[in-house]
């Protein structure tokens, strides 16, 4: 149960929130002008990185507001939370935390508890 710092309500437990998938996927302005493939890309395709991920959250059981977060998917650490109206933070802000404490490889899972 991670703690999420809602920009409007403060720190609350994850159970109050709903994850809204990848952030910064913008709805095309003119859907009719797109090919099936281009439209499909918007509707169905999302990135799924290990490491830094820009995602949306909704404070469903609180203020019902949406906001964005940057989360390291390999450690579940939330690195930054920002409002929808804020600019997307540059990935270079987070580069240093790409690795989990055990220095896991960049892809794949694994549990490394022992310091090498």
């Amino acid at each position, binding site marked *: 149960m991670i703690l999420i710092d809602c920009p*409007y309500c403060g*720190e609350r437990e994850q159970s*109050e929130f709903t994850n809204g998938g990848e952030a910064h996927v913008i709805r095309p302005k003119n859907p009719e002008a797109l090919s099936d493939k281009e439209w499909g890309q918007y509707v169905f395709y999302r990135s799924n990185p290990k490491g830094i991920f820009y995602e949306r959250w909704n404070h469903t059981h609180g*203020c019902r507001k949406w906001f964005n977060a940057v989360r390291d998917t390999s450690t579940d650490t939330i690195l930054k939370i920002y409002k929808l109206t804020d600019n997307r933070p540059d990935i270079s802000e987070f580069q240093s935390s790409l690795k989990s404490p055990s220095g896991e490889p960049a892809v794949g899972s694994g549990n490394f508890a022992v310091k090498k």
Partner: protein
Amino acid sequence: MTKILSSDSVNILQKDFLQVLLRGNGRDQFNQIIAKEISIKPPSKNLEISSDDKYIFAKNSFDQWSLLYLVEQDYKKILKIVENLNMSDEILASDYSYGQAYFEISGNNKNEFLNKLTNFDLRSKKFPVSTMAQTLIARIDCSIYNLKDKYIITCNKSYEEYFKNRLIDINNLS
């Protein structure tokens, strides 16, 4: 007013309040329209409460306010206020009276008691007096208002019986 439970350290009453839920942008025009109908000013800071013996006016979120009437009012008058407010496109006012259940919790042990039903951090450094929060209590959506020596908790009326039973159950078990 109904007494739900009372012990050495926790007292819970159920009350009947009237309530209006407001949506708007909180800017000048919004405030002016409200000033015409309601004598107290809507708080401008998120989660803040302006209150006296008669009202709670709370800002639930950046575009949402709750107005609770703590003393008996003419319901007709409240509905008229809602109607007047809705004349403007800048505001959506919905009458929430009779659709919500209201509980007043006081006593020295109220935090520990409520923390059997919610993980919300009730410590005064995280939840100061004269602020409100929307959170899960007993697994349902509630609003909680911190009025110094007591909390007011509201939930949807349909959960009234369930919520009441959970309060009594926790009190009986501990």
